[in-house]
């Protein structure tokens, strides 16, 4: 009897949901932009901030002119859970929802993992802050508006060698993470070519005990602790480096440009320097308006990490949205294939600078890396001189 009830319930639910699932009527004057970002997992905090930038831009400019028709832009969000194996199914959700172009993701690994789903469906994707070269390399559907790790890694290595005067650096990456693994790799290449020495280690997924890694850094006589890992691990590293008396500067890449780091470092004995895409204060008008928008809603505030600090990824998300709109406008159509063609030649002036793509892989042509230092008394960022490479 029970089994009969069960099968009946399942059948009814199944039918109901098939109809519910199939009811997404497509409006002819709507263009859908997929937002392929993590909302949970290791990179959830950063993904949410990037999404906020996109949502903010969408709230300012909710329509786009294609030819003579005004189209409403609809954002379709899918959570890739910061996990490479969930990325493919999140990507499939976006493709299935009929996205004309996809933005994201925060985190290089998930971008690479979702890439083929977009390739097969012929939907163009615009990487916002995924810096690993493999995201766009050798394909024609993934584009990117930020700089790449070989560039960032080189800048960081030079910074450690020249500005911090370090000769031996401890590098810590997460096992199987394309972002931290890649960045450490390029850092090591440059740093050893400068004549420095490195100790490189990895930690496994789910690890929260960094005390032994910190002890390793101290015992091996390193002078800088380079750990461009996710903000989730970063919190723990900052916390434990304080209690273990790490006693050396910490250097990291763009992921650490987040108020999560500031909150973790507040009042601690931590010397943290990061490289990033956008320093708060570079565009006061954008900053002020965004802060107002974030403070107006408690959910937004929570998604931004509890305060109104502007992360570089938010500004990048904002730019990415306008970049996508420009591409749609240039294409003059909502067809993914047309947008893909148009993206190669799209250019805009965003808050993070001028964005144009090269014609090899569709990567942004950027030459500026901003450098910030965490102020542990005010809980804000102090801007250091930006590095411009010709």
């Amino acid at each position, binding site marked *: *009897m*029970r*089994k*009969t009830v*069960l*099968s*009946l319930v*399942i059948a009814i*639910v*199944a039918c*109901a*949901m*098939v109809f*519910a*699932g199939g*009811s997404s009527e497509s409006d002819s004057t709507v263009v859908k932009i997929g937002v392929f970002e993590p*909302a*949970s997992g290791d990179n959830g905090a950063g993904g949410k901030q990037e999404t906020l930038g996109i949502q903010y831009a969408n709230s300012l400019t909710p329509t786009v002119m294609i030819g003579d028709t005004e189209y409403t832009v609809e954002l*379709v*969000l*899918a*959570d890739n859970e910061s*996990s*490479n*194996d969930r990325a*493919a*199914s999140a990507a*499939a*959700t976006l*493709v*299935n929802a009929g996205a004309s172009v996809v933005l994201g993701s925060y985190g290089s*690994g998930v971008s*690479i*993992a979702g*890439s*083929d*789903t977009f*390739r*097969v*469906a012929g939907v163009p994707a615009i990487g916002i802050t995924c810096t690993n070269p*493999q995201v766009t*390399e*050798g394909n024609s559907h993934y584009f990117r508006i930020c700089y790449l790790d070989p560039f960032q890694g080189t800048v960081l290595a030079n910074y450690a060698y020249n500005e911090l005067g370090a000769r031996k650096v401890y590098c810590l990456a997460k*096992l*199987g*993470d*394309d972002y931290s*693994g*890649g960045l450490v*790799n390029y850092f090591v290449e440059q740093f050893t070519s400068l004549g420095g020495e490195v100790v490189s280690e*990895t930690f*496994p*997924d789910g690890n929260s005990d960094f005390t032994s890694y910190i002890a390793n850094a101290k015992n091996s006589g390193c002078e800088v602790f380079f750990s461009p890992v996710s903000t989730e691990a970063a919190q723990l590293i900052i916390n434990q480096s304080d209690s273990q008396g790490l006693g050396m500067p910490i250097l990291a890449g763009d992921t650490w440009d987040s108020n999560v780091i500031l909150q973790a470092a507040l009042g601690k004995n931590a010397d943290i320097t990061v490289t990033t895409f956008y320093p708060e204060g570079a565009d006061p008008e954008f900053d002020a308006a965004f802060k107002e928008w974030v403070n107006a809603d408690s*959910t937004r505030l929570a998604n931004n990490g509890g305060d109104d600090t502007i992360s570089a990824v938010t500004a990048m998300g904002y730019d990415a949205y306008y970049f996508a709109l420009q591409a749609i406008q240039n294409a003059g159509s909502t067809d993914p294939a047309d947008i893909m063609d148009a993206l190669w030649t799209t250019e805009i002036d965003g808050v993070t600078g001028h964005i144009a793509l090269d014609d090899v892989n569709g990567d942004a042509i950027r030459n500026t890396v901003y450098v910030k230092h965490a102020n542990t008394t005010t809980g804000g960022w102090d801007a250091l001189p930006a590095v411009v490479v010709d």
Partner: protein
Amino acid sequence: MDREKRNHYIRLFSAIAAVYIIITILEFTLRPTSIVFTVLRKGAIYSLVAVSMNLLNGFTGLFSLGQAGFMLLGAYTYAIFTMPVSVKQSERVYRYYECIVPFDTGVFIGLIAAGLVAAFFAFLIGLPVLRLKSDYLAIATLGFAEIIRAIFQWDVLGPLTNGANLLREFKDLSRITIPFTDIPFPPTLFVFIVVGICVLLIVLLINSSYGRAFKAIRDDETAAEAMGINLFRHKELSFVISSFFAGVSGALLAMFQYTVQAQQFRTVLTYEILLIVVIGGIGSISGSCIASFLYIALSEWWLRGLDMGTFLGIEAPDLFRSGFRRLVFSVIIMVIVLFFSRGIMGDKELSYERFKSGVRRLMPGRRSR
């Protein structure tokens, strides 16, 4: 009696043929990006691994939790075997290592190799582990799966496994063709054919004399031994065969999601498959298959709305936010586990007779019990 049996087979084969015809029709009518295909493909792949786990847990009574490890072996073997040499030598995938595999193979050799490698490791692992009993066996196999995962992430093996990084650009579902031509093979049909053959082999095995020996071991080890069944040999056989098919399904999973990475094959994956087996009914092949499709359809499709703000037409972005789908899903699982602990099919198989009697019971107008 004979006639009934013949009728049974005719019905069975026409039902199976109908499934394949429907799949083929869908392939040519629906949009290729439709979520239906995601569900069908992933559901079929999970069916295979669930059935392989059922062979072990349901038919031989060996409580093993190593499935994720064998899937990993299969997935990596397939990816490494079928990745074109030009990709291996370029920097596109093996960026930090020099790949040491100088050859590439076709899809079928890749799939079979995937199974064989998994089976080989199962053979080695089985030697010590299968002497353990119930829970201890479960823990030991779970431990081996974790060890396999760590070995594949070890950077010393990087030239083979690409360290802990992603493998991609192998012959995935978008790259398979009809043999000797360049015409792409319908991907969902491909998955169904491979899974169909594998499940058929497992069914044949279960109905053979080996299968009866497995069931005897499950029901009472001591009695089975007394009847002259070599316990260890049969356990090892079941373990190796189950792992072979887990390996094949791992390879299919790699094909399905275009990329593969050791990180994904965690214990959670094994738990997921175990849940499918239990929901379907321990000891029922058709139950495992039905449960896989339901499980995948629920998690990937029907409940998606719970994460995305709108569900069944109700819009409540504050309630239906990211993560709600999984919460609801786990509640459903708990309800099934607690109130329907024998699963959808129990240990019976789906058949026309049962279907008929089930329909009759549900028919309106009949007196209630």
